[in-house]
């Protein structure tokens, strides 16, 4: 059966060109980049090339690029590293309610260590308000972390404007750009950011390699201490093969950004129009325009998301319901709750994210099948417009907690 992969926000297939770049570093060029002999020097040189490719992709200096093992590590490092470094100055951090768990759980951990965190709300399309931000800033605020683009609903935050506000106050500004790279232009100079997280596997690179951009001269504590790698800022023998892969993937992403954006946007709009046009009681989550070119996120009344995913999977379509990272949990997505959806509705969400190899035929196939699947599941559902939920019944099972 042909598979149609529409979960590019969860992860992307590795580009064959990228795989090709990796292979030599798993075979001949296996030297430890810290070693002084020929094998080591060759590895070191390659890494510096990849560092430059990433720097170019985000308009940074290559000495501002630090490799990590994931977007999650980059987020943890940015937040904990700045917090620990500046804890004598202040213990207040500002972030949003719709951040990735890598940011949210880092902040929650810091709360346990005596920091205070303000989680800014978002409006019904997922936007942070600049006014809210201004009001939240205190004398002891040491860090603001707001994501560039949301991984679930695709909403793009006004990072440049936020950067301006934060910079004026002399506060450190971090943005999680894991979903942005390869989908929208990312320019650290234009954005006024001090720190920016990236992850290779969202841009047709391998899993297990990320980057933290750290503006030159910004003091930050290490997250992983040890050897002198990454200019003494991040210990651990360099993952040469995946670093090379990330470099290549970033280069390809920048080179083809315009055409990829156009391609994704066209198919995304076809998908959104198809779904909203053919399926009653469907709603688009996130901002109608300020959204990632490949992201479509829907809610369907009266049915549950996993049932939709399973039904799609059976006919060869891969999608997601909430962040893939959190699908181990039964709680409805914190992002959908933050935009004001009731938990029951949030459970019925479906995220389909388009990639560079998605075709218009794929989208047609998905829309047509989705019409049937939603109908079938609704037929099976005990709730509908005529049968609202009997609240009294739920009291009986109050002991039944998740």
């Amino acid at each position, binding site marked *: 059966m042909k598979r149609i992969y529409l979960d590019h926000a969860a992860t992307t297939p590795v580009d064959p060109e990228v795989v090709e770049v990796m292979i030599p570093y798993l075979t001949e060029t296996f030297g430890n980049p810290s070693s002084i002999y020929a094998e080591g020097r060759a590895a070191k040189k390659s890494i510096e090339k990849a560092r430059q490719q990433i720097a170019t992709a985000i308009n940074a200096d290559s000495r501002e690029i630090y490799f990590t093992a994931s977007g999650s590590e980059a987020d943890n490092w940015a937040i904990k590293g700045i917090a620990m470094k500046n804890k004598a100055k202040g213990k207040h951090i500002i972030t949003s309610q719709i951040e990735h768990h890598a940011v949210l759980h880092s902040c929650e951990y810091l709360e346990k260590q005596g920091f205070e965190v303000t989680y800014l709300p978002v409006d019904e399309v997922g936007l942070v308000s600049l006014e809210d931000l201004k009001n939240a800033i205190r004398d002891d605020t040491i860090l603001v972390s707001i994501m560039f683009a949301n991984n679930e609903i695709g909403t793009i935050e006004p990072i440049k404007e936020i950067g301006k506000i934060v910079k004026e106050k002399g506060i450190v500004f971090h943005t999680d750009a894991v979903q942005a790279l390869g989908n929208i232009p990312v320019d650290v100079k234009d954005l006024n950011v001090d720190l920016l997280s990236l992850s290779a596997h969202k841009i047709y690179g391998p899993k297990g390699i990320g980057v933290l951009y750290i503006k030159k001269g910004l003091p930050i504590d290490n997250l992983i201490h040890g050897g002198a790698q990454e200019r003494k800022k991040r210990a651990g023998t360099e993952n040469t093969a995946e670093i090379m892969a990330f470099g290549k993937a970033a280069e390809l992403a920048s080179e083809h950004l315009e055409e990829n954006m156009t391609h994704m946007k066209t198919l995304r709009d076809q998908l959104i129009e198809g779904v909203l046009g053919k399926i009653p009681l469907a709603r688009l989550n996130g901002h109608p325009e300020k959204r990632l070119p490949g992201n479509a996120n829907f809610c369907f009344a009266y049915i549950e998301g*996993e*049932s939709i995913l*399973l*039904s799609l999977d059976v006919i060869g379509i891969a999608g997601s319901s909430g962040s893939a990272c959190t699908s181990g949990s039964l709680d409805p997505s914190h992002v959908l709750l933050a935009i004001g959806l009731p938990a029951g509705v949030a*459970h019925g969400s479906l995220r389909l994210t388009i990639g560079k190899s998605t075709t218009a035929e794929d989208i047609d196939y998905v829309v047509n099948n989705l019409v049937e699947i939603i109908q079938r599941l609704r037929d*099976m559902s*005990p709730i509908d417009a005529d049968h609202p939920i009997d609240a009294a*019944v739920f009291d009986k*099972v109050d002991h039944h907690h998740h």
Partner: protein
Amino acid sequence: MEYTDVVMENFTCPKNVGEIEDANGVGQVGSPACGDIMKIFLKINDDDIIENASFKTFGCGAAVASSSMATEMIIGKSIEEAGKLKNSDVVDALGGLPDVKIHCSVLAAEAIQAAIQDYKNKKA
């Protein structure tokens, strides 16, 4: 989520979906906030034997499969026997459920008990 073949069969081609028009025992448990609602319809005859059972479920694959399997398991049984159906019986019949989905089988057992209670209440 790794589901067994039996679960997938019961999800893709569930038995006993829908409402029984002349049901004399109806039970509903769960909440949409938790992601599952299960409604069980029973047609019970004068000998307290369950002649027919059906369900409507809002929930994940495991919830649908548990509903399908549980209704299959009680058709033809006395309400006394059916009331003893344990969630682990449903899990076993499905060839197992992932840990995080065990609660779906609990819901199925609870919904059946609620439906039987509804029948008893009406009769009393």
